[in-house]
C-alpha cells in the first residue's frame, strides 16, 4: 500500500480558560463569507491543524453572536465531518456575547439536518 498522509479528528478537546470578556481579541479577520445553508453544512476538505483551529476560535471569540451566525460557513472547520466540535469551548468567568464553538457546530448540524 502506498504511503498516505493521515488526518485525525479530535473527539475530546480541552476547553480553554481565557481572560475576562473585556480583553481585546488577539486576532480578528474581516474577510466576509456568505453563510449559505449548503456551505455551512459542507464538510471541510481537510482537517485544519491545531494552530489554525485556535486562530479560528479566537476570531469567533471576538465576534458578536449575530455576526458569527452570519458566517457559519467560515467557522465550519471548527467542526468535524458530522458537525461536532474539534475544539473545546472557551471557559469564561463572565458572560461573553460571542458564540462558542459548540454553538457554531450545533448550527452546522441544524443546517445539515434541514
Amino acid at each position: 500500500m502506498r504511503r498516505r498522509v493521515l488526518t485525525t479528528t479530535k473527539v475530546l478537546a480541552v476547553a480553554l480558560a481565557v481572560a475576562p470578556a473585556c480583553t481585546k481579541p488577539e486576532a480578528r479577520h474581516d474577510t466576509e463569507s456568505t453563510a449559505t445553508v449548503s456551505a455551512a453544512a459542507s464538510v471541510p476538505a481537510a482537517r485544519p491543524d491545531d494552530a489554525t483551529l485556535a486562530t479560528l476560535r479566537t476570531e469567533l471569540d471576538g465576534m458578536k453572536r449575530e455576526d458569527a451566525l452570519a458566517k457559519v460557513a467560515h467557522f465550519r472547520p471548527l467542526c468535524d465531518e458530522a458537525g461536532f466540535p474539534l475544539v473545546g469551548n472557551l471557559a469564561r468567568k463572565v458572560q461573553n456575547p460571542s458564540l462558542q464553538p459548540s454553538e457554531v457546530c450545533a448550527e452546522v448540524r441544524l443546517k445539515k439536518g434541514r
Partner: protein
Amino acid sequence: MLFELETVGGPLGRRLAHRRESVAGFAWDELAREAKEPAASDARIVWTQSAFSEYASAASFAEIASGLLAVGAPIDLSATAGDFVVDEIFHAELSARVAMALGGAVPLEVDLERLVRPPSSTDALVRVAELVVRTSCVGESLTVAVLRASRETARTSVVADVIARIVRDEAEHAELGWTFLDWADDRLSDVDRAHLGRIAGAAVSSFAPLFTRQCAGTGTLGVMSCDAFDAVFAEALIHRVETPLRERGISLRQ
C-alpha cells in the same frame, strides 16, 4: 500530557461503525441546550474523568487478553477480553461526546504509559488473575452499581441514555471476572487466593477515591450527589464484590 482523544476515521471508522452506530443517534444538541451552570461545569469534570477511566479500562482489558492467551485460557474467554477493549474505547468516545456537548474537556494531566498497575506475582496465571480481579471483579462490578445510581440523577434523556448504553456493557465486563475465576478454580492454590484477596482489598482502596470524584453538590447530568454516593458504594461492595469473591474462596482483605 493533557488527556484528549482523536480518531483517524476512513477504513478504520467503517470497520468499527457497527460498534459505535449509536453515537450519532444521541441528541447531543439537546444536551448542549439543557445544560446549565453550575451543573454543567461539575459534569464536564466528571465526564472528562469518565472518558479517561474508560480509556484506562481499555488498556486493562488489552493486558488481560494478552495474559489469558499466555496461560492457554479458553479462546472465547481471551477473545471476549479483547473485544472488551473496543467496548471501553466506545465508552471513552461516548463520555468524550458528553464532555464536548457540555463545552469541552477539563484539563486532565495523564501518564498513558502507566495506565495499568503491573501485577506483582511471578506466576503467569496469578498475574492475569490479579488483573482480572482488580479490573472486572472490583472495578467493573462497582462501576455498574455507581452508574446505575448515576442514571437516576441524569435529568436529561441524553445523559441517561449514554449511561444506560455504558452500563449494558459494564455488566458483562464484570461477569468476565467471575467466569475467569470459575475456570481457574482448580488451578489456584489457597496461597494464590489469599494473595488475590489482598489484591482485591487494595483495588477497593484505590478505586474508592476515584469513584468518590463522581459525586458533587449539584447531583445532576449523571453526577451523583455525595450524600447518595456512600450508600450505593457500600451496598455494591458487599453484594457485587465481597460476596461473590467469598463464594470463590477469596476473602477481601482491606
